[in-house]
């Protein structure tokens, strides 16, 4: 170990410590209002924790080399003619491969399985969602309610969304739940979420159903407010909607 290697190692350790501290201390995520959101954020944080040492290693080596090995003006001599250094190559290859495998297994494989098995639980409520230019039509088939104004969900219930589109591609996305699935004409795609806290678009813009696939002119405005309410409030809302539908129907 020569002094250059030791210096870089120390620099790397310092940068890593600083980076991990930032990752663990700084709140990066907006409100996580569903079980699924917690899973996604956890996967994100694991990747950050794993990424920091890699970032720190390259930055430390790069920064140290630039400061320490630069020559003033055009160099008059060549550097050492090192073509390859086997121990380093083996070390590097082993570590990058190991890290890649770790990332594939966790959070890759485990995160995917967690979300899948969560989605496979019994469904408490089914909501049909239809995207069209430029609106979202939300239907609660069991409650016989259809609306284009808002998406109201009961807290703590496992909701499955059956998503489709009438004209072009759209994408169903609720940032507070971290869940997204494209709405494809001629196909029904599904995604599910279990809201864990009440909230509404009026309080936090993360509670919105947003189109996330470019769909033309008013794509940016293709949003519907989301409101997560208690079970009793949900039932009251359903009743009110059903009444309204009947009134409109009678007219």
């Amino acid at each position, binding site marked *: 170990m020569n002094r*250059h290697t030791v210096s870089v190692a120390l620099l790397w350790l310092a940068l890593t410590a600083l980076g991990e501290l930032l990752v663990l201390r700084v709140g*990066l995520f*907006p409100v996580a209002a569903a079980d699924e959101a917690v899973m*996604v954020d956890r996967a*994100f944080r694991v*990747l950050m924790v794993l990424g920091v040492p890699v*970032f720190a290693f*390259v*930055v430390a080596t790069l920064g140290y*080399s*630039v400061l320490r*090995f*630069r020559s003033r003006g*055009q*160099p008059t*001599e060549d*550097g*050492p*003619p*090192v*073509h*390859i*250094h086997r121990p*380093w190559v083996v070390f*590097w*290859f082993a570590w*990058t491969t190991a890290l*890649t495998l770790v*990332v*594939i297994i966790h*959070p*890759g494989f485990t*995160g*995917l399985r967690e*979300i*899948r098995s969560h989605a496979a639980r019994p469904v408490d409520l089914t909501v049909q969602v239809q995207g069209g230019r430029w609106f979202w039509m939300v239907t609660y088939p069991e409650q016989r309610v259809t609306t284009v104004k808002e998406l109201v969900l009961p807290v703590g219930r496992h909701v499955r969304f059956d998503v489709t589109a009438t*004209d*072009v*591609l759209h*994408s169903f*996305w609720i*940032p507070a739940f*971290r*869940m*997204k*699935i*494209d709405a*494809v*004409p001629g*196909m029904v795609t599904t995604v599910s979420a279990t809201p864990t806290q009440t909230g509404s678009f009026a309080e936090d*813009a*993360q509670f919105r159903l947003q189109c*996330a696939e*470019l*769909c*033309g*002119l008013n*794509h*940016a*405005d293709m949003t519907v407010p989301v409101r997560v309410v208690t079970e009793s409030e949900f039932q009251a809302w359903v009743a009110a909607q059903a009444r309204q539908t009947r009134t409109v129907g009678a007219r």
Partner: protein
Amino acid sequence: MGALRELRWIGRGLLFAALGFLLGAAGARGVAGLTGRSEVAQIVVTLGYVGALLGWLLGVGLWDVWVREWVGLPARSLQTQGWSRFFRFNTDHKVIGVQYLVTFVALLLLAGLLAVIMRVELATPGRDLLSARDFNTTMSLHGIIMIAVAVATIIGGFANFAVPLLIGAEDVAFPRVNALSYWIIPPVAVLLILTPFFGGFDTGWTAYPPLSVVNATGGLLFLLAFLTFGLSSILGGLNFITTIVKLRAPGMTWSRLPIFVWSILAAAIISLTATQFVAYGLLMVILDRVVGTGFFDAARGGNALLYEHVFWFYSHPAVYIMILPAFGIWLEVLTHFSRKPLFAYKLVVGAFLSIVVISYLVWAHHLFTSGMQNFLHLPFMVVTELISIPTGIVFLAALGTIWRGRLWLTTPMLFALALVFNFLIGGLTGIFLADVATDIQLQDTYFVVAHFHYTIMGGEIFAIFAGIYYWFPKITGRMFNERLGRLHFWWMFILYQITFIPMFWVGIQGMNRRVADYAPNLGGANQFISIATFLLGASFLVFVVNMVYSWLRGPVAGANPWRARTLDWQTSSPPPVENFQVPPHVVGYPYDYGVPGSVHAVVGVAGGAVTQEEAAGR
């Protein structure tokens, strides 16, 4: 008048294009009658364009230089000296390289300006400057023009200029195909610039149907432009593969091939084989629009999801058409300016080739939220993340090369070093998008925007600038102003970070991409990004001033101002038409810096140092 006369080929091209359009459009009336569709305009535009494209190519010189031979007439050469050579169907690879470079740097600046316009709109929530339609068109044009810049600037520009020099060849294998692939580009640019006058186009560069089937006629112009551009890429790929395989100088074995040439070979393989898929995809969309085939229309038995697979089957490998040559320039510059051999050369070659293979097997990671079959998620996640391993080798080579070197921090070297940092961020954030769990949230947000700007702009555009400054003395014979070069670098590097780092954050905060408007709570961050973008844009003015001034008035550079060892620097600046007065003979490895008595090549002067042994080898 004399100057105008020199432009007569362009004039003839335009005239023939107009005639071609009329012929095509007239034919279209007949076709329209057969299909029985009331919408004639789409057919007229399509066939009119095909006629105009052929007319333009024949008029600008294809007829004289090439097609005359097919009807038994002798071909003519349009080679000249002086500035007019750049405005002709010239077959000299160095002229074509400069044509590509100047054209695409101009397009880069134009698309950069579009980004600035977009950021004016996005500076505050709500609608300010642009209508929804104009925003979508601006955003889509920015995207496709930058994609074209990223695909063609290095392969079309630097590879054309430098590969024949680096391998000691006189020209590329197919000089006329080479000229053709450049002269296909102006119609592409014209079509794209015309789109706003035909209702714009609002699909982004991805052109997903059904939207791309039903949008305004501007969308059709864009599809035709993209398809034409693909043709140019395919021809370019074919040409470089053949050139590198067949035209290497005697002694230029595969293990002596400069790393930039390897990177071009790898990219050319993708360019030749993958581009055809997007061409078919686009052709099917055009047929859906023009004759109503319904390939992607669910109501008529089609499938919209199918296009996404076909599109990304090209477009993911395409990012390696962009980044592999960037790796090539990167390592080339790091080696010469560290005065050390390239670290782990053979492993890097292996890494390039494995990236080529893996690049074909990852496309569906763009489709994790598309509604495709669930069982596809895991394999595509695994294969995508495997790409970290060969990419890691490239980083190893970069760090191993500069380690204990004699770093000469010239402008090209600064850009190459910055690329290590930028691509590191681009690569690491890519893992978040390869991971299905995090991608479900991040897909189609600004996180993706920040990620691909870190890989493509921070990686490739920085490599383009490294390449421009590196080869500027060779191309022009003059030296650029080093002080302005450094000013450009630091200005661009710092403002680049300030612009794009916050985009990761707004993406995590739930701002989706390709929108003209966003939630009001992100107003502050977006205003910050917009101001940073304007300042970043201003850095390019320094670049333009430096280039124009130095090309006209810069000090004479000499043959080898960097004292680099590769063959491109062993001939005069700019090189003569035949590149080397006597064909060079390669006798050693190109990067043996610090190895006593090592020689890469013997470049004889006419009638001079050519040994018998060398003559026999030829």
